[in-house]
């Protein structure tokens, strides 16, 4: 592949993310990877549901007392919005508008960062209450499920930051288009997982 090919919005392919064989491979491979990730989270969800509210005798914490929906609602909004902004970015990827794409991705990253900070706040709040990782089977399962998601968000943030800065000088080409695109797939995936966490962990925790 030649990085020096200069594109214009007219010559830019309709599907830049899979315009070459390497790109197609990455594209399919990443979808498959997300399939594996789905099973990974499914295992975490199943374990969480089995261990929810379970602790040593005299264990005091329940989902109802612990979770506060308003905070989680704000987190959800931040993450959902970041998914939307990443869609805008992909729109500009396809129309070969590098500046706007970078901008929207930057906004995506900021929203993601906001989400992550609130999650850190949430966790530290629980720890202060005495709900630590080692406190019970429930706490281990909770932190592992929600923490694995948070870890994915953090990885995504580092990833997109590196991408934004690495390519800031040179603009779009068929090599990095795939990288940007797979990031957006990843980001949507994280978002979907969060929707399930919001429902299964928080909503069903408070209501059920």
């Amino acid at each position, binding site marked *: 592949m030649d990085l020096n090919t200069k594109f214009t919005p007219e010559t830019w392919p309709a599907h830049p993310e899979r315009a070459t064989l390497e790109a197609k*491979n990455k594209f399919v*491979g990443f979808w498959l990877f997300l399939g594996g990730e789905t099973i*990974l989270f499914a*295992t975490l969800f199943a374990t969480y549901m089995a261990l929810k509210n*379970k602790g*040593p005798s005299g264990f005091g914490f329940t989902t109802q007392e612990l979770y506060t929906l308003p905070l989680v609602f704000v987190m959800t909004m931040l993450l959902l919005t970041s998914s939307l902004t990443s869609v805008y970015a992909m729109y500009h990827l396809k129309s070969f508008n590098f500046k706007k794409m970078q901008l929207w991705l930057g906004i995506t990253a900021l929203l993601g960062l906001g989400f992550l900070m609130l999650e850190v706040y949430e966790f530290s709040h629980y720890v202060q209450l005495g709900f630590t990782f080692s406190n019970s089977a429930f706490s281990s399962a909770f932190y*592992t499920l929600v923490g694995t998601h948070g870890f994915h968000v953090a990885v995504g943030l580092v990833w997109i930051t590196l991408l934004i800065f690495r390519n800031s000088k040179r603009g779009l080409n068929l090599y990095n288009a795939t990288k940007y695109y797979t990031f957006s797939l990843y980001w949507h995936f994280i978002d979907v997982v969060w929707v399930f966490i919001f429902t299964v962990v928080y909503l069903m925790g408070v209501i059920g």
Partner: protein
Amino acid sequence: MSSVAQKSGFGATLWDWLTTVDHKKIGILYLLGGLFFFVLGGIEAMIIRLQLITPNNDLVSAGLFNDLITMHGTTMIFLAAMPMLFGFMNAIMPLQIGARDVAFPFINSLGFWMFAFGGLFLNISWLFGEVPDAGWTSYASLSLHSPGHGIDFYAIGLQIAGGGTLMAGINFLVTIINMRAPGMTYMRMPLFTWTTFVASAMILFAFPPLTIGLFFLTFDRMFGGNFFDHTMGGNTIIWEHIFWIFGHPEVYILILPAFGIFSEVFSVFARKRLFGYTAMVFATVLIGFLGFMVWAHHMFTVGLGPTANAIFAVATMAIAVPTGVKIFNWLLTIWGGSIKVTTPMLYALGFIPSFVMGGVTGVMQGAAPLDYQLHDSYFIVAHFHYVIVGGVVLAIFAGLHYWWPKMFGTMLNELLGKITFVFFFVGFHLTFLIQHWLGFWGMPRRVWTFMDGQGWNLANFVSTIGALSMAIGFTVMVINIIMTTIKNERVGNDPWGDGRTLEWAIPSPPPFYNFPATPLVRGLDTLWIEKMEGSKEMITPAEPITDIHMPHGSIIPMLMTLGLFIAGFGAMFHQETSWGLGVLIFGLAFTFVTMAIRSLKDDLGYYVTKEQILQDQENIKRGRN
């Protein structure tokens, strides 16, 4: 081997192998790595059998015995059988579909190094004298309470190796989806490629649960987690579910590629098109699917209740149907063929009755009420050795003889090959047939020794003699490999003379770019079609020869894995030492930095020019005459 200038000398060669991203070389690395661990696991097995040769034996202590059975099972499944199959998949599958490489050469190399370092990590436990000792299944009720770092080695070593497996699986899937040559439709793919495809899909869905299970175990043992500790509200059965949701598909991940190898061997040496190709493909897919529905047959005695047991019993028996379809197709492939009994064919012929016996005992265990009698007895040991040795290991040996010339350009000695087969095959049945009865007579599995006067003495003695015979057979094979390598008589494209698939249409070993021009595939058994038409070049090109794009080698996969390896020790010792946490963080950071380097540095590969290829082809032709 290639016309592109290469440095010589030991250092350069070593560097070449450490950094290679060529699927054929990675295939060889997998194969040799797997063979190494096969020897290790074999030695462990021999000590186990020697300990059990007489009652009240004390060749090894009870504790060491537990170490041995755990490491034997873990090593053979994760570090011997899987890698050797991956060796064939890497070396052969891309050739079969007419591809120049796999989809992700870099990740391919990463997968290999993760297997290698994971295996190393597990086995370093021997040097520490703290070895995994809760069985290859490592049930949490045992493993949480195992003192020392043995189980930690298990959890982290398998985590690293398992990650590599996952990458290999995705890589093979994408290779098959995207990189088939023109005309190579799904229903023209050789069966080995098909089984690679389905096994890889199973890896994709079976290994993430293992990853999570191992993390839980790691957390519980090293980071204060409580997943399996019932005093803290945990549940030890969760491990069993997770392990078997992975574990049962895993046994099919092993056997499907074995089926693929035998399908190739049968049709080549019966010189007939595989009977019922379409049925074979669908049976493979169906087995892959059903393989995920039956895990609880390993847990009949846990107490899941009659409804669950009944459902899983029926699902288990259902798997026997597509398996039976396959057996009949192989039989009908041989039927009326003009058979050549070569070494690979001998293994294939021996495989059918052996594997059928394993399948039958499997269905017996699948009947939940009967399994209450059989569970955790030597009957189980007999069953899974019949399917794994009688199926997977025979297939690996068949594959070794069958594809050795393609991978190394020289042919293993047929006479020695047949001697190997006789010793190994007889030894195998001698070892494991009698274990069915040992199970009926009440001998539990995983016992260190047994008392005199229970009627088990003779059977155990016979079993050990059988194991010796297998060891002799294997030794002959190693001698064969060494002799063949020293003699190094070069062979041509199609040394068996009856090759049907694309890998036999190109030189042995193939040039690093595999195909000078991408082949055009005009039907199942591509090469056979060309042969029947009397084609001279044996390949119809789909395009003129042009410049070929190739990936650069890289040391980063190995360094990335090294970071994980270091981090593993940090995790293990962080509770009792001051440096543990630092090492853990350093290792992970190291991995992350190498990953970032990989991501930030463009690697666009390089081109082999048309002239170089033509020159190379010319050299190959001249070398042949």
